[in-house]
């Protein structure tokens, strides 16, 4: 029973450092701490430790900020240099999609005609249409991804 009281006090002391206690818990704890030297000393010890934690100083490596600022500025420069190239890639991709969509019916008819001339089953020439669409996109994606990976690993 007595142990329960101290356990409750320990629990409330921890809670008090994380959230606001209910008024009755706060009152109960204050009364208990006034009567119990052990719990009160424990509270002071943890408070001192947390206060020391707050005041803890560490030595920052010399010129850490300066070196970081330089690296960040160099990287910013690099990003600015790549920006026009990236915009160009996006512009080409958008144009390619527009032309691709606009020419889709013609491509379909073209493959249909070729399939008819060569007596190919529909599955074969339809696969040809799909590849006509997919292969350039896959190659372009591969180039962009490998290019990016290369730049990342070079850094």
């Amino acid at each position, binding site marked *: 029973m007595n142990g329960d009281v101290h356990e409750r006090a320990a*629990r409330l002391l*921890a*809670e008090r*450092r*994380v*959230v606001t206690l209910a008024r009755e818990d706060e009152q109960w704890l204050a009364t208990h701490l006034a009567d119990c030297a052990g719990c009160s000393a*424990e509270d002071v*010890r*943890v408070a*001192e*430790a*947390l206060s*020391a*934690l*707050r*005041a*803890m*100083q*560490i*030595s*920052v*490596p010399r010129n*850490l*900020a300066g*070196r*970081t*600022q330089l*690296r*960040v*500025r160099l*990287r*910013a420069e690099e*990003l600015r240099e790549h920006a026009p190239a990236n915009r160009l890639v996006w512009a080409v991709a958008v144009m390619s999609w527009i032309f691709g969509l606009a020419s889709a019916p013609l491509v379909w008819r073209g493959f249909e005609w070729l399939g008819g001339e060569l007596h190919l089953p529909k599955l074969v020439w339809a696969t040809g249409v799909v590849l006509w669409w997919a292969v350039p996109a896959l190659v372009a994606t591969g180039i962009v991804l490998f290019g990016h990976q290369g730049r990342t690993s070079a850094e």
Partner: protein
Amino acid sequence: MLDDAQSLARALKRRDPDLLDRLIEQYQFRLFRYLLHLTGNPQTAEDFFQETWLRVLERGHQYDGRWKFEAWLFAIARNLVLDWHRRRKPQSLESLAGPDEDATPFDVADERSESPLEQVLHAEVRTGVQLSLQRVPAIYREVLVLRFQEEMQLDEIAGVTGAPISTVKSRLYRGLDALKSAMQGGAA
């Protein structure tokens, strides 16, 4: 605060180099200290410090100003450290039991004016706390540091760690408990 955060977000989107210089200067101590707590190694912490700011530059457009900047910054730093841990070993911060056996506490550099006796006493307390903190499992040490050293709110800690507030609270309770036990162990 919100207006500040919003203007910060706009400047980060522009990759304003002067702003980044100021932020690096302003947060160098706190970010480095946090990374030191996470990694336990000054050289590694320094590498992650630089990587974190490069990431801030590259992903600045993702900061929307709804969080405090430091919570976002610390979340980036934490994710970089976690990725590094996962690459080294398939584990997360949750599974890190604690520091290496031979780990030494950080260098203490206190510049406040104190009497020599006060300096000795305070240094002893701080060293004791550092040693005790090193014995607290990393998962609890992290929230203790964010709460009591960085003085973050529970929701900000939840944002940094990606854990629900209830989990943050329970880690804090356990962390306090572990710190108490570690201090008792150190005193014994």
